[in-house]
């Protein structure tokens, strides 16, 4: 009987050991070292300081490298094309490169890890990320990345200057040019407008002008549609606003110059990324005198369709430390870390954080924060991550679209610029 009892206890223990092994443990990869490669972004800047918390929690050493976007992409491509196992975690803009990277097999599939209870923290709750945000990083059944923020271009304007010059806040897209002219007339020394001019990065800010004008980058049958009348109208408005009311040298401007111009008070309006909110409001007085909202809708079209995208973090398919990397992804996108990141101006992609007490308390501290949060909710509801023609070669397509805007700025007719762009875009399909 004793022997039988002993055997039963042994059998129970034997089944209990694998059960214990299956429970999630943050320390399961203790002692590992992972390499993280990030693009320069408010999220990665904050992560550089926070990563020590991850190391304390997991015992994993995380080495962070941050590069400016151009260098980042070049390095990422070199490492991945060379099938290097040195890099474990990387940032990815899946709306831009997701399809092409996925086809190349560069992303590790996160779906099995999410489903595995021994690998995923019980409170991770993947469904907490908005459905559209999750969809942007899902190809078929494969989850390629976890969202780290949500962003889109927003309309920032100086309320004080508008009041001083008795110019009404633009309610419709078409009123931007009228407001710009009135502000210029009121004070010829005051800069009026600034927006992106470098062609490859312009479509991010330009797309709202096209969509709100009633245009689209594609025809209903999926062909390049730059020659559609409303598309040309949006293109022309963006280019002429930049040419007639923008700062000199605007074609070489990216978000860094726009942020400086608005922050220093040299311009009265811009259409720039929601990410730049924290940087802009760090300048003296800007937190008090700025207004922020999504780009006004088109008056004739009645359309308000902003660009809404999100950066993500992914695990390299070549990584030999995918379990440790997955722990990093969970920690970095956890509710706890996203709540901390709000102070760095990183808009949380988790619904629970966005609707949480901490975020609400933060937005209530200043009216402009509330306006920014409301604009982000609007981006989430009505935004789109598609702002090019139907192609896998997204960067090239966006470069061509930005090139059309530059051509109009330099004096080409919208019809001529759009025709050239359509011919080039057709080659990418």
């Amino acid at each position, binding site marked *: 009987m004793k022997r039988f009892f002993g055997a039963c206890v042994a059998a129970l223990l034997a089944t209990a050991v694998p059960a214990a092994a299956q429970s999630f443990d943050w320390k399961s990869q203790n002692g590992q070292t992972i390499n993280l490669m990030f693009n320069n972004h408010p999220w990665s800047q904050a992560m550089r300081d926070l990563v020590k918390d991850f190391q304390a929690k997991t015992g994993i050493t995380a080495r962070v490298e941050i590069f400016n976007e*151009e260098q980042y992409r070049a390095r990422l491509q070199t490492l991945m094309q060379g099938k290097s196992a040195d890099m474990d975690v990387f940032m990815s803009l899946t709306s831009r490169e997701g399809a092409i990277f996925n086809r190349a097999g560069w992303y590790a599939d996160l779906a099995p890890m999410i489903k595995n209870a021994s690998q995923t923290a019980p409170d991770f709750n993947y469904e907490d990320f908005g459905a559209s945000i999750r969809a942007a990083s899902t190809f078929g059944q494969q989850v390629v990345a976890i969202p780290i923020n949500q962003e889109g271009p927003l309309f920032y304007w100086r309320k004080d200057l508008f009041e001083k010059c008795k110019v009404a806040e633009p309610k419709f897209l078409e009123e931007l040019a009228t407001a710009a002219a009135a502000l210029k007339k009121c004070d010829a020394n005051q800069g009026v407008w600034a927006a992106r001019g470098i062609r490859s990065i312009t479509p991010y800010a330009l797309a709202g002008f096209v969509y709100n004008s009633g245009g689209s980058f594609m025809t209903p049958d999926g062909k390049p549609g730059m020659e559609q009348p409303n598309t040309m109208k949006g293109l022309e408005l963006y280019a002429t606003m930049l040419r007639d009311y923008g700062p000199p040298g605007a074609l070489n401007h990216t978000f860094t110059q726009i942020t400086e111009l608005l922050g220093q008070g040299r311009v009265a309006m811009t259409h720039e990324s929601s990410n730049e909110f924290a940087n802009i409001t760090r300048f003296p007085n800007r937190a008090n005198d700025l207004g922020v909202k999504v780009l006004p809708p088109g008056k004739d079209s009645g359309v308000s369709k902003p660009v809404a995208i999100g950066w993500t973090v992914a695990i390299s398919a070549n990584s030999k430390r995918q379990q440790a990397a997955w722990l990093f992804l969970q920690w970095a996108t956890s509710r706890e870390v996203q709540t901390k990141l709000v102070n760095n101006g990183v808009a949380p992609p988790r619904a629970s954080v966005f609707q949480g007490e901490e975020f609400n308390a933060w937005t209530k501290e200043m009216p402009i924060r509330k306006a920014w949060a409301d604009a982000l909710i609007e981006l989430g509801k009505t935004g789109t991550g598609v702002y090019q023609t139907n192609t896998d070669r997204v960067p090239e397509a966006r470069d061509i679209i930005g090139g059309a805007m530059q051509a109009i700025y330099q004096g080409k007719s919208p019809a001529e610029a759009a025709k050239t762009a359509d011919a080039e875009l057709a080659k990418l399909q």
Partner: protein
Amino acid sequence: MAQSGTRNSYRWMVAPAVIFAAAMIVYPFCYALWLSFSDVQLGSDPRFIGFGNYTRMLADGEFWNGLRLTFFLYFMALGAQLVLGTWLGLLLARSQSARGLVRTVMVSPFMLPPVVIGMMAIVILDPSFGIANWILAQVGLPPALWLSDPSTVMVTIAALDTWQWTPFVALIVMGGYLSLPHDVFEAAEMDGANGWFRFRYVTLPLLMPTLITATVLRSVDILRFFDVIYITTQGGPGNASTTLNILAYRRGFEFSELGYASAVMVTLSAIVFGSVLVFARLRKAAAW
């Protein structure tokens, strides 16, 4: 017998260095050459397509635009650097008192990393923020768009390179001049040759090998000039500063067309190599 043994052991001693150099130079070049004959899809192995990338290049307007801009920059920057460098070098060589201090100051621009030069240019030449337009305004001149205007961007980039590298040419010229036999100049002076004639018929011919050496060094650098252009304009506005280097970088790393980008770079390498060969022959002809 003992001598040949020593020679063999020397060969073995230099072998690691030769193998290392070959691995670092020959292998990447051969790989780029192979890629230039291939269609490279991200994540998969290159697929051989013969001269496909080269025939596409010949029909590509952006390639010809890049070639034109590369040569424009080459002739403009090289010409300016040789003329100004020679003038400065001779001036320094003849001025005993200023040489030490001025030489130190002159060396500083080409000691700076290209990233610093690029960032300085962005700040100084920005039409809204920069000090360059403020200076123009102080002397009553209209503001310029510098790097933002398609008609001035390449001249501005050539000026930046000239500012950075003229001192380098000047130092080479100064060194060359100081090593020349001075009795020739004294003889010319005694024969009544004036300043211009002495420069044209004595100094310049004697300096020619030095100048060709400077030309070779600067040719290689200017033809593969990339960093400052990319930092300041990224090839814009439009394609106004998209030299072959910028074109290849964008096609390779932004648009993931590694095969086509390699074809452009192999072509540029051939141009660089060709220019070095031409100047090496000229140097032999100019030797005295």
